[in-house]
C-alpha cells in the first residue's frame, strides 16, 4: 500500500525546547489515522509541521513520496487541506463565501472563482451536510455549525490528504458523530487520507484504522486501536487510572477514566 505521509527522524524545537523528538512513522494512503496523547505532547505542532505552517528543525517529511519542500505553494495546497482548532472570525462572511475560499489554490492571479468553483463548493456543502446554511452569516452560527463550515471549506479544496486538529473539541455528541461520519465517508467514497488529532479515545477507537499515541514529543505506541488502547499504555501516558473493556457497539476497546484516582 502507498504511503500518503512519511515522516523520518523529525525534530522540532521552539526556543530551544524540543517539542517533537526523533519522530518516524508513515500514514498510508486512504487511511483514517488518529493522533492521541495528553495535552502538551506535541500533537498540534506535528499537524502544523505536516501542513507546512511550522518549519521543522531537522528530519524529513514526504508527501506522497515527494519531499515537502519540492512542492510549489499552490501545488502543495491542492494535496493537503487543514482544519485548525476553532477559528474565530469577526467579519460577516456567508457560509458560501467561506467555503469558496477553499478554491483559492486553483484560481488565477486576481483570485476570481468561476461557475465550476461554485459547483464544487455546493457539492462540498452537501457533503458536509450544511447546504441549508449556505446563505447564513458565519458569525451567527453555533460552534458545531462553524466547525462543519471549515470542514466543507477543506473538502472544497479538493485535497488528497485532510489534516484536522481536534475538530470535535467542545462540540456536543451529535456534532462529534456527524463530523466523524463525514470523515469516514470522505475516506470511503473519495479515498482521501484523513489524519486527525482527537482527545476522545472512544471515538478514536471506533473510527480510526490506526492510532498514534504521542507522549512528550515521541511515539509512545502506534498501531490498530486494540494495540494502542491498552490499560498499561494509557495509564503510563496519561497518568490516571482507567477501566478498559469492550465497547458494546462492536470490536472496539472502550476507555473509562476512574474518578479520584489520578497521579497529580
Amino acid at each position: 500500500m502507498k504511503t500518503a505521509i512519511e515522516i523520518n527522524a523529525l525534530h522540532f524545537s521552539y526556543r530551544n525546547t524540543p517539542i517533537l523528538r526523533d519522530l518516524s512513522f508513515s500514514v498510508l494512503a486512504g487511511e483514517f489515522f488518529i493522533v492521541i496523547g495528553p495535552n502538551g505532547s506535541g500533537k498540534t505542532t506535528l499537524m502544523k509541521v505536516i501542513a507546512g505552517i511550522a518549519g521543522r528543525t531537522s528530519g524529513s517529511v514526504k508527501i506522497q513520496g515527494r519531499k515537502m519542500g519540492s512542492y510549489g505553494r499552490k501545488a502543495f495546497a491542492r494535496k493537503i487541506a487543514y482544519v485548525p482548532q476553532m477559528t474565530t472570525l469577526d467579519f460577516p462572511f456567508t457560509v458560501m463565501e467561506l467555503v469558496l475560499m477553499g478554491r483559492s489554490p486553483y484560481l488565477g492571479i486576481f483570485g476570481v472563482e468561476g461557475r465550476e468553483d461554485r459547483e464544487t463548493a455546493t457539492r462540498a456543502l452537501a457533503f458536509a451536510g450544511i447546504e441549508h446554511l449556505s446563505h447564513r452569516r458565519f458569525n451567527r452560527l453555533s460552534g458545531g455549525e462553524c466547525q462543519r463550515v471549515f470542514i466543507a471549506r477543506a473538502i472544497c479544496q479538493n485535497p488528497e490528504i485532510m489534516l484536522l486538529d481536534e475538530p470535535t473539541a467542545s462540540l456536543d455528541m451529535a456534532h462529534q458523530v456527524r463530523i466523524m461520519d463525514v470523515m469516514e465517508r470522505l475516506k470511503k467514497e473519495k479515498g482521501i487520507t484523513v489524519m486527525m488529532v482527537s482527545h476522545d479515545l472512544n471515538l478514536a477507537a471506533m473510527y480510526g484504522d490506526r492510532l498514534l499515541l504521542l507522549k512528550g514529543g515521541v511515539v509512545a505506541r502506534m498501531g490498530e486501536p486494540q494495540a494502542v488502547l491498552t490499560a498499561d499504555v494509557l495509564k503510563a501516558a496519561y497518568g490516571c487510572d482507567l477501566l478498559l473493556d469492550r465497547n458494546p457497539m462492536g470490536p472496539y476497546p472502550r476507555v473509562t477514566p476512574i474518578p479520584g484516582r489520578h497521579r497529580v
Partner: protein
Amino acid sequence: MNSKTPVVIKRILIINSLLALLLLGTMFLGLSMGSTGGSMGDVWRSLKGEEGGGAMLNDIIWKIRFPRVILAALVGAALSVGGLVFQALLRNPLAEPYILGISGGAAIGAISGILMGLAPFPGVSLSAFCGSTATLVLILILSSGQAVMVKDALLLSGVMVNAFCTAVIMFLISMTQDSRLHTIMFWLMGDLSSVDLHQAGILALMLAPCFLVIFRLSNTMNLLLLGSDLAQTMGINVKVVILTLLVVTSFMVSATVSHCGLIGFVGLVIPHLLRLIFGPDHRILLPACILGGGAYMVICDLLARVLPAQGEMSAGVITAMIGAPLFIILLKRSGR
C-alpha cells in the same frame, strides 16, 4: 456580461458603477458650491467649457475648487483603503491608520520635514513615510507575542503611540516661532485648501500603483481573515503578503498625510459602512472603498467649506465629529 461571467466580477461591476456615479455626483456638488455664488447651470456650462458664469467663476471652479475636489477624492480613497487593509491584517474591524497612530507617526515625519524646509514632494512625503513606518514597527512590537492579536492590546498600544506622537508634535510646534507655525497648526487638523492641480496629479500617480497592488491581493486578504495558518495552507506566502501590504499601505498613508495633514476616522467609517451593505469580500470592498471613500471625503470637505458662517474649517473636524461617535458605538457592540 453573459451568463459565464463570474458572479464576483458582476457584483464588482454593478456595485462600483453605482458608487462611481455617486462619486461623480458629489464631485459636481463640490464644484458647484462654495462661498462665491453661481448657479448649478452656470457651473455645468463652465464645466462644458462655455463661458456661462463669467471668467471669475470659471477660474474659481478650475483653479480653486477642481484641484481641491480631486484631492479630497484621492485622500478619501487612500484613507479608506488604508483602513480596509489594516482591518484585514490585524483581523480587527476597529483598526484604522489614525486610531493606530500610524497617521500620527507620519505627521511627526512630515512636520520635521516642513521644519527642515523640505519641498512637499518628495521631501516631506519621504520623511512622513519614515515616521509612519517607525510607528508601524512600534505598534507591531507592542502588540505582538500573541498568537491572535488581542483587540484591547492593539487599541491600547495605538492610544499610547498616538499620545506619544501628539506630545512630540506639540514639542516640535513649541520650538517653532515663524510663519510655518500657522501652516503646521492648520495642517494638523487636516487641510485640503492649499493644493494645486500639479500636486493632486502627483498624489494620484503615487496612489494608483498602490491601489493596483492591493487589488491584486484582495482575495488573499479574504484568506488572511481566517488566520495566517489557514491562509498558508491555501497556498499563500503569508510573510511576503503581509510585508507587501504593510509597506504599500504606510506609503499610501504617508503620501496622503503629507498632502493634507491629519484626517481621522475615514478609514473606519467607510470600510465599515460598505461592509455592512455589500458584505466583507475584499475584491468588492477595495474598489468600493476607493469610490465611496472619495465621495465621502468630497462631501466632508464641502461641509467644511460651506457650514461655517465665516471662512472655513478643516475637513478633519467633520470626519472626527462623524467618526469618533461611530467608533465608540462599534467598540461597544464588539464587546458583546
